[in-house]
């Protein structure tokens, strides 16, 4: 079983702060981290490998500093890491991103055939959730999105049983291998990394590829050039008009508010008294 997990480096929006007065982003405060959903994707690969054995590779497209998230993935339990980094990838939208990643997957697959690709449900910065299904289409393997459990992997039959989240429950899907999954956070808990992994990670040197290391690449499909979507204007959404300020003592203010609320009293469930 060879599982490849696609991982993205993102700024930590938990730490990033917005100044509520000016509504501007304080970028200095945002360290780069492994996209949280992708951490769960790596963890899931580790879980699957625990049952089936095999190899876990992680793949990222990003700046050279993205080696940090590859090391992080090795800590969680990945075996190999690949980083594709090149000026030519810059400015990619999701279509160009899935193209570049699928080309790298092609090369990884030549070294060791890929049985499963796992992505996060979405990246917390770009937040489109479009890259995973895009890669699946380019590799022509079935995508299963919003996965909350990988219930069974049958290596003989080359099938996998998956629970996909729905708004009011889940569906149980059987898919052929290879396939691509995108995972929800609830699929697993990130476990403490064994000391051995930490040591391995500290010394690990990922494989780094530029465009020229990939085969049959149509450069017009990469980066900004290969992106059909472009970011047009950026604007601050107009704030809605400020409303009426209620005046007076707390009691008086509440009284005025009550008048407003009681105009809508049909909304409130008035229990019949016993």
């Amino acid at each position, binding site marked *: 079983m060879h599982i490849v997990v696609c991982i993205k480096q993102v700024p930590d929006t*938990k730490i990033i702060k917005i100044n509520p007065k000016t509504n501007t982003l304080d970028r200095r405060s945002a360290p780069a981290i492994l996209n949280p959903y992708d951490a769960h994707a790596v963890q899931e690969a580790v879980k699957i490998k625990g049952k089936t054995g095999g190899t876990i590779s992680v793949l990222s497209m990003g700046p050279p500093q993205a080696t940090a998230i590859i090391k992080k993935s090795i800590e969680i339990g990945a075996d190999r890491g690949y980083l594709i980094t090149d000026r030519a990838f810059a400015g990619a939208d999701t279509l160009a991103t899935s193209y570049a990643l699928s080309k790298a997957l092609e090369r990884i697959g030549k070294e060791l055939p890929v049985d499963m690709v796992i992505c996060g449900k979405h990246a917390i910065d770009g*937040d*489109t959730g479009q890259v995973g299904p895009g890669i699946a289409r380019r590799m022509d393997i079935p995508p299963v999105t919003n996965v909350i459990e990988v219930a069974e992997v049958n290596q003989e039959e080359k099938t996998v049983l998956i629970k996909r989240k729905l708004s009011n429950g*889940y569906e149980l899907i059987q898919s052929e291998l290879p396939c691509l999954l995108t995972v929800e956070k609830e699929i697993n808990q990130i476990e403490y990394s064994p000391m051995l992994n930490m040591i391995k990670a500290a010394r690990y040197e990922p494989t780094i590829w530029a465009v020229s290391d990939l085969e049959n690449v149509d450069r017009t499909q990469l980066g900004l050039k290969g992106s059909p979507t*472009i970011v047009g204007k950026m604007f*601050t959404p107009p704030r809605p008009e*400020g409303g009426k300020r209620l005046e007076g003592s707390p009691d008086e203010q509440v009284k005025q508010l009550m008048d407003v609320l009681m105009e809508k009293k049909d909304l409130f469930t008035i229990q019949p008294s016993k």
Partner: protein
Amino acid sequence: MDFRDYKGVWVFIEQKDEVVASVSLELLGAGRKLADKRGVELAGILIGENVKHLTKTIFEYGADTVYVYDQPIFKHYRTETYMKALLECTEKYKPEIILFGATSTGKDLASAVATDMPTGLTADTTELDVEEETGLLLASRPAFGGNIMATILCKKYRPQMATVRSKVMKALTPQTGRTGKIIEETISLKEEDIRTKVLEIVKETVKKVRIDEADIIVAGGKGLGSFEGFQLIHQLAETLGGAVGASRDVVEAGWIEHAHQVGQTGVTVTPKIYFAIGISGAIQHIVGMKNSGLIIAINKDKEAPIFQACHFGIVGDAFEIVPILIEQFQMALSREKVSNNSKG
């Protein structure tokens, strides 16, 4: 690619258990505006098994045409099958714009289809417009950080595609008896060739929190100070018979689960009444609740941005105001009860 070959606005109609998803009805409303501005048709594309009768609803909500794929192979949503139908239909009729709900199904399908076409796909759109002359779709979405909106354009490819968040567009009032053209299509797909199978659909028995369905939401922010302080929000919600909402900071502090989070990375809500208590009013929060019917803000900082986004604002301490409100409301309700009883 000759853009003149591409005409009309399409909405992918999501359906489950014989009903059209509300986001699809909202998109028909939004699509109608775009189509009218361009002077083109609005069409729905409906895929499923035993779904033909849904065309009635789709026409009543504004579509001129519905393309229907009604075959057993479409019983359950699967990317592989639905994608094939949509690609085939698009190839044949060439729409200029296709809109999808930004639901798990809509996103999954749109991402796959856009890759094969290939074309650009704007994600999680919250504002839509079109250039009358060129037909260029102006799809805006909150950009990273969310305090800024970015308009995403797809100038060189057709059709232009976007997924659109639910509860931000408005459905038209349905016109009973309004009809249109039904175009039935079939696709030759063999079950053996499909690599995924839906074995079972399991509905959750415990009802999950769905704050997007509530008429009244009482939302609390970091200003409540602590988990214990936040219980005040639950009390007011209970008194008013409403649901509890929260800012992201509250969710991150662990005072309540993520299902209650309102905003860009939470749920978009449009209740009839929305209380924002101890919430500063960051834009990421506002985008999730600004379309509420009546917005009431309580905050002790008179400069808090939330006051720019509410209908009625009280500058004061939540721990002073809210208990009075609960008391007053309970009194008012019991008066109502008495008068209701004496009536009948």
